[in-house]
């Protein structure tokens, strides 16, 4: 029994600094402006409630160069989601265009139509778990928060601060400018108001990585009433398509 208590005390001693950090974080987490959350909710609840939706995203992503400086890369994603668990994305960026098929059946397929190379990823059947799983396999989708089953919760869980900066003009359009921090990251959101609130732009700064790389996403062409065909989400392998492997990951964050 004494030995058991000893181990218990040792465990608490080891974990105490971490508990302290957690408490400090929790204290800081009190500075959340409900107005900022209300605007996020207004813009993201339509994504949760829609049977299907689509949008186009222009993504710029900072990477580190071999000389340690920031190098910015660009890509576009044409996204179609069908609730509860179907997803199709057309990626255009470096190299050949690639399509992602996910029909909730336990696998996702990446396919390059121009080369007819595809790879199959075994994934969970829920869209949230699938997105998390794909991220672990190196398929990082910058708009992931907006694809999950509850985008509002996905964005606001674990916030440290949330502020409504103000109503500003972004390229001649009136938008609400919001600013957030969370452990390891700070991010901003620009939201178009009115009868049909929608997200206009997202910027995320990763505070955990050297040089604090940034991901910026501009959203276009929101459609909350698309009519995707069923075969849009299921990969139909052409007869002359070749299956290839995923490149082994280097150390990830």
């Amino acid at each position, binding site marked *: 029994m004494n030995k058991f208590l000893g181990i218990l005390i040792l465990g608490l001693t080891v974990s105490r600094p971490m*508990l302290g950090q957690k408490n400090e974080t929790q204290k800081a987490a009190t500075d959340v402006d409900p107005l900022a959350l209300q605007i996020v909710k207004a813009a993201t609840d339509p994504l949760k409630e829609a049977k299907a939706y689509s949008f186009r995203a222009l993504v710029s992503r900072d990477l580190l160069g*071999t000389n340690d400086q920031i190098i910015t890369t660009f890509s576009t994603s044409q996204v179609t989601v069908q609730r509860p668990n179907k997803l199709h994305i057309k990626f255009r960026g470096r*190299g050949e265009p690639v399509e992602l098929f996910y029909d909730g059946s336990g696998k996702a397929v990446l396919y390059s139509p121009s080369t007819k190379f595809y790879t199959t990823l075994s994934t969970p059947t829920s869209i949230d778990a699938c997105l998390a799983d794909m991220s672990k396999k190196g398929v*990082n989708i910058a708009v992931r928060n907006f694809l999950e089953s509850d985008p509002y919760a996905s964005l606001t869980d674990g916030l440290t601060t949330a502020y409504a900066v103000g109503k500003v003009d972004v390229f001649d359009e009136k938008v609400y400018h919001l600013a957030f921090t969370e452990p390891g990251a700070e991010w901003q959101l620009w939201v178009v108001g009115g009868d049909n609130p929608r997200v206009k732009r997202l910027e*995320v700064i990763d505070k955990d990585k050297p040089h604090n790389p940034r991901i910026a996403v501009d959203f276009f062409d929101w459609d909350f009433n698309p009519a995707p065909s069923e075969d849009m989400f299921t990969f139909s392998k052409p007869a002359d398509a070749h299956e290839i492997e995923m490149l082994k990951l280097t150390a990830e964050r």
Partner: protein
Amino acid sequence: MRNIIAFLLMVAIGCQPLYGRVERAGGNNRVAVQNHSNNLNSNANVNRNYNANTNVNRNVNVNQNVNVNRNVNVNNNVYVHGGYYGGCCYHEDNDWGAFAAGAAVGVATTAAVAAATRPKQTTVVTNTVVVGSVVPSLPGGCATVANGSVVIYNCSNVYYKPFYQGSTLVYQVVTYP
């Protein structure tokens, strides 16, 4: 056993991170960055040595410049030496078109002259592409090499195998199959 469980429980409770959820994962692949013009100079030196062995070339200074231009392309292959960073890095399309040194001026004339005086080291440099390097697109003039069900490309005796790296189709330099 009970002791181990108690210890692990305490550590787990204390260490549980409070991560935020906004997406910021980007992988650790680095972009190869290098001064192309520095390479230009180093190859110019090589050419001078080559010309020094042939007295005729000493009288045709223009040739030296032509050779320098040609070596810009060769250098792009050397550039793949970014693989020294552990094969972690990808390399962008290095076709600089009209911005390549000398590309816009006197191409037809200088190319003909260069063909006659092309340095022997060109082939050697091309073959120094580092196995494990990754590129987003293949260079021109590649042929498919049959290797069972695996697709491999032979691009001037440099072999590339297609992979997916995240949502990007890439080609990794591999050894001869």
